């Protein structure tokens, strides 16, 4: 029998922390569950999950859906789409069986790319390689989570760029149902000897196809994802890493009778992550945001300390409680903290998002 390989290439950069990654985790479990009730898909579909942040890795190697067990998704620092693509192409090269006189090959593989931001590295070489070697032998669907993705870049990779407006748990449900239906129709159409790739109809409410031929604000550049500010921190008590996520808001500010929009970030939450965070992080990077632009501060999600955003002289972040003397879990130095008040706040090293 022929396999229909489905690859999920998933952005697990810090900006995905919290609700999006939980939804993706649950969403993939539901996709597989739904596919299991469809006899065509159950017998033909094989699934693999590749995740990328600053680094890329195979979370689930290509396998039949009957042996699939929903994985736990890690979170990493950075959005290295080029490493993600590179790893995907390596996996395709290693796993895809081509039809020859002696063996029955796979159906054309389908890749679902989920990303929510802007790559933090140069993707041109990886995209060129994809176009040259894989664009004809695999089908790619690129899905932007939210409004801030570099659509034009995704358009270079795929003719199917979808925009998913992740506004509510219902919209996630609708979105994952759309992915499931696309896989189901493909698994049936391959049997009918057609090209074997048919996306399900979209409702345009939660997911819509992007027409890149129309003008729009698609160009985004720079190597830091500016829609979110994410700080990587370590808990003083448990030494565990955690992330604090702030989402961009515009706030009007009145200055000398004139209205200005200023950039600010509102706290979305703080989340403990496991040590795989360091494994998937891009270490070569540093960038700052001013504390004045931040609204709200979380408590530590690992030990409950009242203040989760203290910056040590080593410029790393950890939590502090009401102890007189704090010890930085990163560098071990000790000190007393005062609030960074006064003029202009202070700069905090942010992660790439």
């Amino acid at each position, binding site marked *: *029998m022929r396999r229909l390989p489905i690859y999920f290439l998933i952005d697990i950069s810090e900006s995905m922390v919290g609700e999006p990654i939980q939804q993706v985790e649950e969403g993939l479990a539901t996709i597989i569950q739904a596919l299991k*009730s469809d006899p065509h898909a*159950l*017998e033909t579909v094989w699934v693999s999950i590749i995740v990328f942040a600053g680094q890329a890795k195979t979370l689930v190697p290509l396998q039949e859906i009957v042996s699939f067990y929903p994985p736990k998704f890690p979170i990493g620092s950075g959005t290295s789409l080029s490493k993600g693509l590179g790893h995907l192409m390596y996996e395709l090269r290693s796993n895809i069986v081509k039809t020859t006189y002696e063996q*029955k*090959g796979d159906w054309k593989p389908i890749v679902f790319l989920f990303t929510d931001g802007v790559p933090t590295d140069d993707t041109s070489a990886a995209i060129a390689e994809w176009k040259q070697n894989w664009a004809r032998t695999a089908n790619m669907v690129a899905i932007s989570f939210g409004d801030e993705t570099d659509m034009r870049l995704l358009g270079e990779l795929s003719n199917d760029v979808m925009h998913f407006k992740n506004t509510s748990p219902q919209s996630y449900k609708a979105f994952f149902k759309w992915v499931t239906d696309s896989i189901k129709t493909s698994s049936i*159409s*391959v049997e009918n*000897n057609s090209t074997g790739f048919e996306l399900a109809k979209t409702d345009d409410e939660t997911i819509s196809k992007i027409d890149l031929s129309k003008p729009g604000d698609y160009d985004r550049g720079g190597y830091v994802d500016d829609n979110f500010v994410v700080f990587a921190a370590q808990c003083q008590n448990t030494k565990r890493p955690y992330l604090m996520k702030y989402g961009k808001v515009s706030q009007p500010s009145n200055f000398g009778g004139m209205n200005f929009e200023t950039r600010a970030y509102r706290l979305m939450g703080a989340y403990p992550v496991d040590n795989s965070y360091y494994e998937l992080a891009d270490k070569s990077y540093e960038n700052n945001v001013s504390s004045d632009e931040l609204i709200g501060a979380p408590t530590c999600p690992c030990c409950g300390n009242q203040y989760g955003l203290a910056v040590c002289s080593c410029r790393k972040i950890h939590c502090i409680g009401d102890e007189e003397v704090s010890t930085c879990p990163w560098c071990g130095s000790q000190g007393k903290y005062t609030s960074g008040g006064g003029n202009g706040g202070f700069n905090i090293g942010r992660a790439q998002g």
Partner: protein
Amino acid sequence: MNDIQKYIFTLLANQGIHSPQQFEKEFLEFAVREENIKNVSLIRQLQVQMTQAWQIRARRLEIAGQYITFPNGMAGRPYTALFNFETLNLTDLTSHSLTGFEGTGLEYDAVTRTISGTPDQGGDITLEFTYNFEGEEEGAAPNVKKLSIIINADPKSLWKDIPSDANGLYSKPDNVAEICQLGGKTLVAASRRGRSHANIGGYRDDDYDYAELENGWSVIAVSDGAGSAPAGRKGSEIACNAVVDYLKHQFTAERSSVIDEAVSANAKEKIKELGLPYLSGAANHAFEEIEHFSREAAMPLSNFHATLVFALVKHYPQGSAFMTFSIGDCPMALLNKDMTEVTLMNKLDVGEFGGGTRFITMPEIFRADDFEARFRFEFVTDFSYFVLMTDGIYDPKFEVEANLDKIERWQHFFEDLDLERKNREALPGMRRGNDDIRDRLAEWMDFWSPGNHDDRTLAILF
């Protein structure tokens, strides 16, 4: 300094108090006073308690967040899984239980830590894992964690068998099988709707037809309507009927007698040359008939895409003549008397990623350079079986083209088919003879093969 003195010295130094160095003698005295010895030991006890309390809390969090999985099972198949504390690093558990197996067909033995049984239906089994671990107080409330086992449904149980609408457009019977005498040999043929069509109450896309012609010739045609073509089932039907019809009218005794002369003279090239116009005429006629029908129905020709293979056959005292035409991916094969050699009568049209086949409904094939190569002629002194099949049989039973060349695959194929039911006791009351062969074939056509649920058509001349 003794242990106690060291302790107090360090305690003071930690707070930046360095006077013990200045007043060393007094400090050493101070440090060994009764109440200080008591206090240090108390502090140490409290520290140990605090550390332990934290360690227990951290361990509790650790286990609660731990990713514990069991292998997936399948409904109706025996299942065993070990709850392996060693590999899961849970050797510090002092007691545990795993519940939630009611009505699942599985059970858990806490002594051997084994889950076993036969799950009776697909779905996710959610289990409650309760446990205590070393270090917790006597009688501490058990910790609770949800675990799950995924049970897959048996794929066979998911396929529905919905009859097609007998009054619908271009309807045809879902399953047919027949046996007849054809030109002095026996033809047994069956065409069965695949599970993918049965699952949605769709129609069979495959078709076949055959006829005795004048002067001892006969024709057998097999066609597979493209699943992606909305009226492929009609295309295959028209193709088979058109070929048979054309040869009935065109390949008359008068016209075919010259071929008999060529056979007597053993002039093989001549036989081919004489037969070719009729074969290509029949293929052309199939195309024209479908084209005509599509115009009448006001549908694009591509709605009727279908493959087509057919063979003209005649048996002489010195052997048998086979003339064939082929477009698409339906293999035709000829097996010699003692089943030691197979001769393939066509080369299949296949693409790199599947779905690259060609159809009789493509006008360009008649103009293509390889059109001549679609015709084949064989004269054999003896044969045991002549077989025509659609990809619904070929895919599961031969997988790839390379295997069609291998005689052992064919030997195995006929053992598996077991038309004569050699491998089993004849059922009581079962009819013997030809009907039995037909029924046996019809029954065999329903074989199970994962991922292969296309329509199946098989015609065997023997």
